[in-house]
């Protein structure tokens, strides 16, 4: 459950990235966030995971009230969601396997469970044969899939993905989106910022369109909606 009330974000250099956002995404929903480059999609996601703090307004996620969240509670907020970052954010000194396993180690999962889960998820994203490689040895799309595997490994209540298909060919992109759809069917809330028009149009899910930091459209079973 995600609830944003009156959220605004002005960066320290004066850029107004978000301007009075009100948004409710219910448990188990699947929502696309679309909008032109610089519209504020990534900023919105950064606010959700508390990488940035809103200039004004209130955010509630999974029973965490972000306004009254103490510093040492932040890790638990982040664990309650799986996040795929636009710039991947893989640990450069760990292999693919270790990167995914790390997300389980931080919640002190048992080694046995780690040994079972990690290969399973790497298989799901099609990277079983790259487990021992380091991020810099992967192609852009492969890195993106590792990031997705890491986000999914702890069965988060909310999955937030910033352009999870940006570096993927349409086939792989569809595989990934289908995977996210399956996860959503099992009850996980999915929020996905994307530019992939075809995917948005075919999925017939909720579409939230941002422009210049404002929600200009919010439709159930919507479409990408920007004509070429």
């Amino acid at each position, binding site marked *: 459950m995600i609830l944003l009330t009156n959220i605004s974000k002005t960066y320290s250099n004066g850029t107004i990235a978000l301007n009075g956002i009100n948004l409710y995404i219910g448990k188990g929903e699947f929502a696309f966030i679309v909008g032109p480059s610089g519209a504020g999609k990534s900023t919105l996601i950064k606010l959700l*995971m508390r*990488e940035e703090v809103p200039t004004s307004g209130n955010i509630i996620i999974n029973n965490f009230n972000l306004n009254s969240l103490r*510093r*040492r509670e*932040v*890790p*638990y*907020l*982040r*664990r309650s969601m799986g*996040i795929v*970052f636009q710039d991947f*954010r*893989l*640990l*450069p*000194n760990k292999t693919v396997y270790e990167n995914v396993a*790390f*997300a389980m*180690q*931080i*919640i*002190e999962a*048992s*080694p046995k469970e780690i040994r079972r889960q990690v290969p399973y998820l790497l298989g799901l994203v099609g990277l079983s044969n790259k487990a021992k490689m380091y991020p810099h040895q992967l192609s852009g799309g492969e890195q993106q899939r590792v990031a997705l595997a*890491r986000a999914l490994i702890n069965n988060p209540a909310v999955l937030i993905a910033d352009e999870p298909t940006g570096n993927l060919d349409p086939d792989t992109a569809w595989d990934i989106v289908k995977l996210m759809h399956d996860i959503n069917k099992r009850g996980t809330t999915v929020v996905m910022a994307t530019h992939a028009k075809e995917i948005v149009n075919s999925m017939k899910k909720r579409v939230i369109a941002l422009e210049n930091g404002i929600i200009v459209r919010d439709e159930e079973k919507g479409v990408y909606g920007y004509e070429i």
Partner: protein
Amino acid sequence: MVMKFRTIRYCLKEGFTSIWTNRLMSLASIGTVLACLIIFGMFLLFSVNLNYIGAQVQEQWEIKVFIDEKIPSHEIPIIGEQIKKIKYIKACTLETKEQALENYKKQLGEDAYILEGFDEFNPLRDSYNINLDDIRYADQVVQQLSEIPGIAKVKNHKEFVDRLLKVTEFVRMASLWIMLLLACIAVFIISNTIKLAVFARRKEINIMKFVGATDWFIRWPFIIEGMLIGLIGALISLLLVGYGYDYILKLIYQSMNIFKLRSFSEIFEALAFIFISFGISIGAVGSAISIRKYLRV
């Protein structure tokens, strides 16, 4: 905060492997710890020996009390007993007037013949040579000595004592301050290096936080890594300083032999303790402090 055993194992393993993964930074940090401890150790040994030499000089220095000629010789030991009762006196030996004359002759060396006439009629007096526990109590002791009846005169070389005291005190204070300064500089340099090493990995620390790791979960491997780097640096420098000192001792004893210096075994334990505790603690604290900034995300 309570940790599961698996997490402790993870932190340990992570700390150890990280040293190898970040070879360049580890080498730079170990090298810096090493270099700083070598300088620090050199000075430590230098100042320890200066103090030691100072103590030896003090030991060789003595107060001389002359016995009144009128005292019959069988009463002289009684005066000796009285002297020995005074606090801070370590040793007290009798020098008869015959011995005194001999010593004068020795002192004059080749011109001793001018004293030949005195062999039959010795104008000198019996005396006690007194060594003190600590040269600083000289004034006090002299005061008490002069109150003993039968003592004609106390030769205490007041000026010499004062000067020696000043030099000793100065060396002691100076070496203490220099040691402190060096320790500060070493801490500064080492923490600088750790700061840079952590800086090079700031992204990594950030990412861990973004994935949901707690501060301590991120911090422990770094602390263990820092401790290990400090320990390795300390052990190598201990080896180098230790063997270097042993080598230099031999060199010094070959070329001159005025004063005794502290032997290797005398100082090794203290040195090991200082180096290792210094290395480990600065490594741990340095890492912990340096990553703080990057945990704030």
